[in-house]
């Protein structure tokens, strides 16, 4: 992490602003409560006590997009629902990330037909794709850890210049 302590026991650490900001962002990513279909049930199972998500700071699912950082698109996105997702994504304040959970959100999964959007990345830009139908809670947690790594790798010059 590039932390070096100085001045002995005074408890001072030095690091770069970029690292500190990225560390803060990964610490408590609040997801938007956005379960659509079957993957939502596995997301709820991941939230509950067996595969606890609150140890990642994601205890609360915010119902309002204004208060959320992360949208986990869990389930199949249909053509009727597509403008709704776009509106929710636009309402989220920056910084925001998108995790496409499951096959249906990544690439429409089993459903290659008139009613399902072929992957939610047709509508909103996705950061991490988690495969599975539905993905196990451990797979979702791996996806979240991957997202944490991605956030830690973000450059401050991308958004601060």
């Amino acid at each position, binding site marked *: 992490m590039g932390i070096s302590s100085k001045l002995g026991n005074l408890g001072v650490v030095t690091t770069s602003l970029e690292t500190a900001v990225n560390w803060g962002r990964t610490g408590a990513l609040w997801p938007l*409560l*956005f*379960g*659509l*279909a*079957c993957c*939502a*049930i*596995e997301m*709820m*199972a991941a939230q*509950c*006590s*067996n595969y606890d998500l609150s140890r990642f700071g994601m205890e609360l*699912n915010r*119902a309002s997009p204004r208060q959320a950082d992360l949208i986990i698109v869990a*389930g*199949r996105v*249909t*053509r*009727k*629902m*597509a*403008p*709704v997702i*776009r*509106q*929710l994504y*636009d309402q989220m304040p920056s910084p925001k990330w998108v995790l496409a959970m499951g096959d249906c959100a990544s690439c429409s999964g*089993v*459903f*290659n*037909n*008139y*009613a*399902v*959007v072929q992957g939610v990345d*047709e*509508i909103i830009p996705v950061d991490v794709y988690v495969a599975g*139908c*539905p993905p*196990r809670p451990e797979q979702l947690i791996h996806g979240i850890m991957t997202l944490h790594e991605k956030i830690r790798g973000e450059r401050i010059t991308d958004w601060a210049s």
Partner: protein
Amino acid sequence: MIDMIAPQGSEPAVTPIGEGQNWQGSLDELKGMISPRALTGETMLLNMGPHHPSTHGVLRLLLELDGETIVSCVPDVGYLHTGIEKNMEAKTYTKALVMTDRMDYLNPLGNNLVYCLALEKLASLDVPERAMIGRVILAELTRINSHLVWLGTHCLDIGAMSMMLYCFREREEILDIFELVSGQRMMTSYFRPGGLWRDLPDEFIPTVQAFLDHFPKRVDDYETILNKNPLWIDRTQGIGVITPEDAIALGCTGPVLRASGIAHDVRKSQPYSCYESFDFSVITGDHGDVYDRFLVRVKEMRESIKIVQQGLKMLRKGPFISSNRKFVPPPRAELGQSMEAVIHHFKLWTEGFRIGKGEVYFPTESPRGELGCHLIADGSTNPYRVHFRTPSFVHISALPKLVEGEMLADVVAIIGSIDIVLGDCDR
């Protein structure tokens, strides 16, 4: 053969999102459904949008409010319409089975079951006894699973948040049993035409028995927390009442109908998959309110425990799938010895089996109500038409009757009590 691919060079089927799209709709479209007072502005139209923490999925409700009281309610569904019925027409019978799991995603084995039963009835395919009892055991475990999720989310909506954690803890054990049997937690596709996909493993009976040893005490805990809880009783008794005549007229089945006093259960009236050899009772309520629907479902969990217990005792060694090689692939060991087995394997894998012309409607009892499959075959390898009669679709259509005159806060309790799953509704 239906035309699958749009002509080359045509425009993509989706219009650019967000440009001039008014997905909410306008007021005069609703003229037949809301009272005239809404059009003058005397009452308020509230949109309980598709994205809402308590609507159990993507359900949109347009509520016309006079203060806190609801004057009328217009549900708007279709936000999860996946085109499963049309997609199944483009696949062979076995491939289409995989799509049935994803309809009612809290009852995947039940959906498999209804499709397999309709197919077996249409093709006159025999199912061995071990497969039938295995199907009953797993279907009842799925019923317990579905009721646990219902209870957890219903209590979460009303405010008893710890129930959600308890119910999902139980649910993990049932999902472990599904994983033991089929390798998948939720969308197992374990029931195949003719029986089961693979034999029940040796650890199946001890694992299910271990689950059944401690689960009844947990149901006792749930009843202790909720049954006589004054907060729970205040929020659920007398709310969302539906009379038996209205329930039948609106097509309600399952716990919604049973809580109003009508003892209609498809497992008893038209038994399938050897349910007639099991001893269980049909639970009914008296008043048809939210509290009665809650009690009916919790007691049904106990009945399901009884059925699984009986099923475990009835399981005997034997074949787990039909031996009709026209429909069921031969085991791999047979392929080395018999030429017919190789030919059957080849035919089944390249084009799939054919079913002669016919039409059948098969009803089963899902945790939500009557789940039926209307299957039409025309002699080809693909189903000609599959239509699923899903209970959630019918129950949401009964929702305006249930919420009329209630307060806004009770809408959440009522939606929870009718136990809808939007995948079941929209398919």
